[in-house]
């Protein structure tokens, strides 16, 4: 199944989404990422019991912070799918790419340019 997904996406592999911390998400934006999405296993099927549920909470925390500081909480999202669902993986990648493209670039990058000018 040689499926293609948008090349703008950079995948960071983790042993479990429970490893995702709030600071990882925030640092991604700080470094200029336009969007971040976390793809975990289906809820209820985490091998470590609650990794994906914890990840969802951290994504929500990031969303609140990004909204407060004007970056936009819609740039971060949590998805759940099984490892056998490659077509769904591609769908999510395309959906998130469309969504983030519509939101435009991370405003921090514009701010950085202003600072450099």
């Amino acid at each position: 199944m040689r499926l293609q997904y948008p090349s703008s996406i950079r995948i960071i592999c983790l042993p479990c989404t429970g490893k995702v911390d709030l600071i990882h998400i925030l640092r991604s934006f700080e470094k200029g990422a336009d969007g971040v999405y976390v793809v975990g296993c289906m809820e209820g099927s985490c091998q470590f019991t609650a990794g994906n549920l914890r990840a969802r909470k951290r994504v929500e925390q990031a969303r609140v912070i990004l909204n407060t500081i004007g970056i936009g909480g819609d740039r971060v999202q949590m998805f759940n799918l099984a490892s056998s669902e490659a077509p769904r993986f591609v769908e999510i990648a395309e959906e998130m790419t469309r969504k983030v493209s519509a939101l435009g670039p991370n405003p921090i990058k514009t701010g950085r340019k202003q600072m450099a000018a």
Partner: protein
Amino acid sequence: MIVAKQKPLEEILEGVKNAGKILVAGCNECVTVCESGGKKEVAVLASALRMAFMNQGREVKIDEVTLERQCDHEYLEELRKLIDQYDVVLSLACGVGVQFLAEKYMKTTVLPGVDTCFMGVTEQRGVWTERCQGCGQCILATTAGICPVSRCAKRLFNGPCGGSTRGKCEIDKDLDCGWQLIINRLKELGRLDDYEILIPIKDWSKERAGGPRKVVREDVR
């Protein structure tokens, strides 16, 4: 431990809006355990502040440090050589730490990043409840280890008030009546007769009502 919760980010941003150099200072003790001001929270807050300023096109230097404690001279001394670089120190320690830091470095603006709430316990992850008000005259020996000063809304000393219903307090249906807890535990201990012993009037001057307090131990000075 002292339980605190982080202030809303909007309030923190308002407080530091004119600063050019900010030090976010965490504390490795109580506020780390209650997840409001430890190393992790310092990193998250510093990152959020950096992004907020970058979004405004402003270059603000934001550094992070987490001290072992902010309520001891020896750890606060670690800031001595670097504190003058900053316009503002945003302390995520409890009110004790913020004040001690401010007292020690008179020429630096120190702002609190947390609201200090009470002395309490971790009931479960993310749930902290009050257990002690530091009243200066502990009566836990006579109340089966449950404190009527901190657990009873009215701080009653000799049994519950008329607002106690089915073991719950009248101010909140989910809040246990402190005196019901005391009676239950006296029963478990086989000491229910102690409930009849009148607790004398408390000397409230040993509590906050007597003004700021001080403990001096000449033997360890």
